[in-house]
């Protein structure tokens, strides 16, 4: 059919028809195999400690860790095995008997695109940077109890911990604190900018599989394979990371073959995409929870009964249908289902609107007050979820309403310094598949993703003890305690863990889901 129309057009507008017809199908462009990725925006910086839009997606390709997870093949697809941690940039390691000193032996001959070899000094410098910035990297260090990192010899790095930690090895798989080619980076440091952060906004220098070749702000970033990569050269020698703001447009480009990879396609399109001939979709468990959070320090959410009532008032299956088109798992714990130690047994909030009303009355809830659920457009489920949650609350007599604020406002007001939103929507999830890490991130009073100021001394104590424990059984038990208390306190309206979907050209194989939800281009190939 389409061909006939194009023939018609050829007679009247040859040029236009020509360009539509010339849109190439999926192919390998000559010798340099190029992968074209369509993303919501071009990366705005490459400093893993200072996350900006597009940063996390790209620094994970450039900065690789001392360790990495093992892999398994299930149903022909590769998956990470969180129980197995192998050496990556580090070859091996030893621990002191008290568990507070670790020595990592670096692999030799690992070179960056600039030709510099990885040495312990690079690791020391990189961790010093994260400590100095006191942001995400410092948080990771804190979670793993790391207090100091120093180079012992050319290839040996010593980590000093304040207490033993079972999280350290998993934390070292992360992209942050990134391991930088400090020889190169230091060339761009200045007196006011000792860590070359300014240079990092538009450059990279890592030991990973890819390297930033060029960037056109707001439009695209081009990455090339690190020709000195210490493992096998990646299949895709070039990756064009292209900004396409509209989610619908990204799907369109994929379907027409003009891009080969899009991240998180719109859920309403996934069903359709699954049956589309020129598109392949693959999913993985979600590890981030989409939820409405209540600030326990702001009335009326200071009263636990109100928070519990809001949980009872939610028809969660309906929400999963209406917002996530069924492509999500109901949240029954603050710990994601794929993390060991996940315990759904404490979940007690099945849909019960009468109980919800009764609890509100018992708490002397003022039904006349306006409850504004704040949401932004950072995640595309926020608007429908907030509206539908408000609607369900209205059904039990609460004057609830969804109100939009700007993305920047949402981030600013959820930052530790402020945290002044009474009730709002957000998505967070652990990028380390460890229950202690999860809880430290989300439920500990000092957790970076604890945007609603939840604070419970028992929870804090349990997490702090678990962080230092090397007894797996004890850790699991402590985390069960945390999950139980958290469920009783109900600071969030628990909704769902949306599944993670990737959509790609049909001949691309090798996607291995990672806990940070970002594909690794080094894994992909045409097959």
């Amino acid at each position, binding site marked *: 059919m389409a061909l006939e129309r194009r023939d018609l057009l050829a007679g009247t507008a040859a040029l236009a028809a020509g360009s539509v017809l010339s849109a190439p199908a999926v192919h390998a462009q000559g010798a340099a195999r190029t992968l074209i990725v369509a993303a919501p925006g071009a990366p705005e910086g490459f400093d893993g400690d200072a996350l900006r839009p597009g940063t996390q997606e790209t620094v994970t390709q450039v900065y690789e860790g001392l360790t990495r997870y093992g892999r398994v093949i299930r149903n022909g697809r590769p998956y990470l095995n969180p129980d197995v941690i192998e050496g990556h940039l580090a070859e091996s390691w030893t621990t002191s008997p008290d568990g507070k000193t670790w020595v990592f032996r670096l692999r030799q001959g690992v070179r960056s695109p600039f030709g510099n070899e990885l040495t312990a000094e690079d690791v020391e410098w990189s961790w010093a940077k994260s400590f100095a910035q006191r942001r995400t990297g410092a948080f990771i260090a804190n979670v793993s109890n790391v207090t100091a990192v120093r180079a012992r010899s050319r290839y040996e790095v010593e980590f000093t911990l304040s207490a033993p930690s079972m999280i350290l090895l998993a934390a070292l798989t992360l992209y942050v604190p990134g391991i930088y080619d400090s020889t190169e980076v230091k060339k761009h440091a200045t007196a006011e900018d000792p860590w070359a952060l300014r240079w990092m906004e538009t450059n990279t220098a890592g030991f990973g599989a890819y390297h930033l070749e060029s960037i056109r702000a707001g439009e695209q970033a081009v990455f090339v394979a690190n020709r000195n990569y210490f493992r096998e050269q990646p299949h895709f020698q070039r990756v064009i990371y292209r900004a396409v703001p509209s989610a619908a*447009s990204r799907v369109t480009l994929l379907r027409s073959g003009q891009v080969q990879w899009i991240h998180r396609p719109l859920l309403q399109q996934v069903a359709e995409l699954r049956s589309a001939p020129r598109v392949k979709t693959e999913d993985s468990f979600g590890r981030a929870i989409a939820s409405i959070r209540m600030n326990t320090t702001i009335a009326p959410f200071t009263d636990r009964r109100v928070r519990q009532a809001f949980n009872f008032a939610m028809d969660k299956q309906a929400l999963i249908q209406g917002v996530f088109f069924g492509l999500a798992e109901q949240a029954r714990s603050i710990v994601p289902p794929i993390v060991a130690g996940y315990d759904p047994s404490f979940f007690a909030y099945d849909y019960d609107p009468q109980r919800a009303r009764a609890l509100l009355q018992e708490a002397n809830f003022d039904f006349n007050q306006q409850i504004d659920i704040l949401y932004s457009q950072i995640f595309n489920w926020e608007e429908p979820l907030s509206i539908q949650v408000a609607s369900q609350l209205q059904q039990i007599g609460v004057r609830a309403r969804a109100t939009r604020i700007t993305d920047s406002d949402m981030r600013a007001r959820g930052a530790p310094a402020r945290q002044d939103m009474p009730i709002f929507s957000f998505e967070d999830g652990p990028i380390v598949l460890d229950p202690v890490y999860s809880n430290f991130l989300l439920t500990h009073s000092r957790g970076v993703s604890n945007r609603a100021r939840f604070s419970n001394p028992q929870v804090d104590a349990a997490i702090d003890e678990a962080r230092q424990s090397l007894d797996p059984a004890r850790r699991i038990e402590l985390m069960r305690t945390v999950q139980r208390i958290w469920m009783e306190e109900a600071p969030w309206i628990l909704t769902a863990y949306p599944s993670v979907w990737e959509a790609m050209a049909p001949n691309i194989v090798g996607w291995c889901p990672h806990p940070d939800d970002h594909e690794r281009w080094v894994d992909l190939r045409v097959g």
Partner: protein
Amino acid sequence: MSGAALPAARRGALPWWLRRVVGVSRRSPTLAIGAAILICFAVLAVIAPWIVPHDPVAANPRNVLASPGGAHLMGTDGNGMDVFSRVLAGAGWAFGIAIPAVLVGIAVGVPLGLYTGYKGGWADEIIMRVFDALRVFPSIILALAVVAAAGPSLFNVVLVIGLLDSPVFARVVRAEVLALRNSTFVESAIAAGNPTWRILFVHILPNAIQGAMAQSAVRAAWAVRISATLAFLGVGIQAPTPEWGAMIRQGAEYLVTGQWWVGIFPGIALILMVLGLNMLGDGLQDLLDPRRKAASK
């Protein structure tokens, strides 16, 4: 001129007001059609609460993005809300924004126009310069910037649109006042010792108001359009309020994935209502502007 007269046999059979309507319709079919469309919308807006098949703001997560047909004449949107009910309810919102906005424009613009036209002098100069300066902005950008900064409340939207309308009313009235200022009956009123405000409001205003009245329909059309644009950009009225622009905003996301009904139907309603208002305004201007009447002979 009484316009094309009805056949003599029928003349006595119709009541006087119907005769007027028919007469006006013949002179300006645009006006008639515009008025007819508008009356339909007004009626729908008023009876909407009783005739909507579903609650326009009741989310139904289990029936999201249903295609038109069956219980949902125009399908459902991304929250499971019935599009048809929302389109009907949207008429009420359109009037609810346009009427107050135009009233604000008149309330601010007409006195300004009267005063500056009558008094002249430096006040006139300054105010006209400010209006001229405002004209260098495309009005949508100005409205957008103000509402974005002030916040997306109904009050802000109405106020901003009304204030942006006022220069138009002011200019129209001012022109009339300038023409009337030196007429004999005004001069005699001054000679009779009437205070300024009396002259303005009792003598001049009734004659100057015609132009402004013709403008109101057009300004109302603009008000409906621009409030929809603001809502579409996410700056004005927000979801889940059943305002047509907000509905198109949500519909835009689904338009390119095949669920066309969410955005198309509110758009059609918007076009019809704005068209009706524009036709009404155009027809009124035709009737009231003697030059245009003469030219059309």
